[in-house]
C-alpha cells in the first residue's frame, strides 16, 4: 500500500539517525557517566558515599521539601483548575497565563524575589527578625522557592482535562441535590484522579531536582542542603571521596527520575487502556 506521504528513504534514515544520535549523546551518555562514576570504586564505596552525614542530611531535606510542597501545590492546582473551568470571571485567560509564570522565569530570579522579600535587607526582613522568624537559609525558605518553581504542574495538566470533560455531570449532580463537597468527591474527583496523580508526579520530580531557586534561599548553610545543592557542594569540594559522593547522590536522583518516568508511562498507558480493555458491547435492547 502506498502511503500519501512517502519520504525518500534517505531523508527517513537521516532524520532517524540524527534523532538517535542526539538521544545517545545528550541523554544516554550522561546517564551512563553518572552510573559508571558512582559505581567505579565498587558497591561498598557507593553505599558509604550515600550514608555519609552530608548525604543523609541532603536526602532527608529533599524528602521533607517534597512531602511539603507536593500536597500544597496539588491543593492549589485542583482549586485553580476548578475555578478556571467552572466559573466565568473577568481576567480568566490572564490568570491561566499567570499560573505559567514560573515556567518562563529563571528559577534563580524566582529565588531572588523571595530573598528580596524575606531576606535581612528585604521588605519583611526587619519584622521577621524582630519576631525571630527564620525564612531565608531555613526550611520555610526552601519550601517557598520550591513551591514557586513547581507551582504550575498540577493546574496546567488539569485545566485542559477538565475543560474537555465539561460541567454536564456536575450540573446533573447539582440538580440531584449534591452539595459542593459531594459534587467534588463523588463526581469530579473520580474523573480527574489520574490527572491529579500525573501532575503530582511531575511536581515531585521537579521539586526534588530544583537547584537554582533553592540555592538562593538555602545559601551555604550546611544542614540546609537539598540533594542537588549537596551534589554541587561535593563536586566543588575536591576532597578524596567527594567526587564519588557527588556521583552517588546524582545516581539517586537519577533513580528517582527513572521511577517517575515509569509511573508516568504506566499512567499514560492506563488512561488509554479503557478503549480496548472494555468488555464487548451488549446487544442493544431498546
Amino acid at each position: 500500500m502506498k502511503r500519501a506521504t512517502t519520504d525518500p528513504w534517505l531523508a527517513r534514515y537521516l532524520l532517524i539517525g540524527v534523532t538517535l544520535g542526539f538521544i545517545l549523546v545528550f541523554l544516554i551518555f550522561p546517564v551512563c557517566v553518572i552510573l559508571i562514576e558512582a559505581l567505579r570504586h565498587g558497591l561498598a564505596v557507593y553505599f558509604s558515599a550515600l550514608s555519609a552525614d552530608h548525604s543523609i542530611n541532603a536526602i532527608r531535606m529533599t524528602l521533607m521539601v517534597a512531602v511539603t510542597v507536593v500536597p500544597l501545590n496539588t491543593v492549589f492546582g485542583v482549586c485553580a483548575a476548578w475555578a478556571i473551568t467552572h466559573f466565568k470571571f473577568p481576567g480568566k485567560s490572564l490568570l491561566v497565563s499567570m499560573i505559567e509564570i514560573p515556567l518562563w522565569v529563571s528559577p534563580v530570579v524566582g529565588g531572588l524575589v523571595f530573598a528580596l522579600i524575606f531576606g535581612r535587607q528585604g521588605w519583611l526582613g526587619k519584622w521577621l527578625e524582630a519576631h525571630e522568624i527564620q525564612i531565608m537559609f531555613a526550611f520555610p525558605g526552601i519550601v517557598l522557592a520550591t513551591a514557586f518553581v513547581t507551582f504550575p504542574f498540577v493546574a496546567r495538566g488539569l485545566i485542559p482535562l477538565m475543560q474537555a470533560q465539561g460541567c454536564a455531570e456536575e450540573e446533573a449532580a447539582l440538580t440531584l441535590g449534591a452539595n459542593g463537597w459531594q459534587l467534588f468527591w463523588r463526581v469530579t474527583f473520580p474523573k480527574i484522579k489520574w490527572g491529579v496523580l500525573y501532575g503530582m508526579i511531575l511536581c515531585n520530580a521537579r521539586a526534588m531536582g530544583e537547584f537554582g531557586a533553592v540555592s538562593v534561599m538555602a545559601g551555604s548553610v550546611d544542614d540546609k542542603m537539598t540533594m542537588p545543592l549537596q551534589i554541587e557542594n561535593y563536586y566543588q569540594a575536591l576532597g578524596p571521596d567527594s567526587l564519588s559522593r557527588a556521583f552517588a547522590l546524582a545516581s539517586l536522583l537519577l533513580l528517582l527520575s527513572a521511577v517517575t518516568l515509569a509511573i508516568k508511562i504506566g499512567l499514560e498507558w492506563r488512561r488509554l487502556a479503557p478503549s480496548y480493555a472494555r468488555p464487548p458491547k451488549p446487544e442493544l435492547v431498546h
Partner: protein
Amino acid sequence: MSVAVSHISKRFETRGHRSVPALRDVSLEVKTGELLALLGPSGSGKTTLLRIIAGLEIADVGQVFFSEEDVTEKSAYARKAGFVFQAYALFQHMSVFENIAFGLRVLPRAKRPDAAAITKRVTDLLQLIQLDGYEKRLPSQLSGGQRQRVALARALAVEPRVLLLDEPFGALDAKVRRDLRKWLRQFHDKTHLTSLFVTHDQDEAFELADRVVIFNEGRIQQIGLPSELRQNPANEFVRDFLEL
C-alpha cells in the same frame, strides 16, 4: 406542583461588548400535573428558560415560582428539579445502579433512606424503565435509548416536584424516539408529574404535550392546545413554523 416564570429576561455576554438577548420578558405557567412542550427553532432560548427554571442559569430579570414559593434566589441544589439533559450527563464512572441511587445517597443523613430502601427504590425504577438486570452496567455499555431512560430514572429517584427535559429524544433514531415518546406519555398519564420539555420537533410536541408553547428569538409567540395552534396561529412566524 405548578411552575411559573414571570417576566424573565436574560442576555448572554459574548466576547467583546455586544451581548445577545436569549430571553425577553418571558412569562409562563406550567399547571399542576401538566405536560408542557417548549417548541421552537434552535437558538430560540427554550433551553435557557429550562435551565433558569432548574437554577442552572440565573436570569438577569424576573422570578421563578415553584407553586407559591419564590425560588428565584435558590440554587439548583436547593431547588432539586428533576432534570434530564440533552446528552444525558450520566456519571460515566458509576454503574447504572449508582447513577440512579446518586440523588438518594447525597441526601443529608437524617433524610437518607437505608441501604435496603435505596436498593428497593432503584430496583423499582429499573423495572419502570424496563432495564432490570442492567444495574451493573456502565453508561458506556448502554445504547442511546437505554441511557436516556437511565437519565430519566436518575432524575425520578429523588421524587422531584417537577420534571424538566431538554430535547429528551434529540439524539435517538426514529424508532426508539417513537417508542420512548409513547412510553413517556404513558408514564405521565400514570404519575401526573408536572413536566416541561424542550423540543424543536413539532410532531413530538403535538403528540406528547397537553399544551405547546411556541418560542422564537427569546419571546413566546403563542401558547395553546395543539388544535388551537393549528386553527388560529397568532402570527406569521407560528404559521410559517407549523407549515400551515
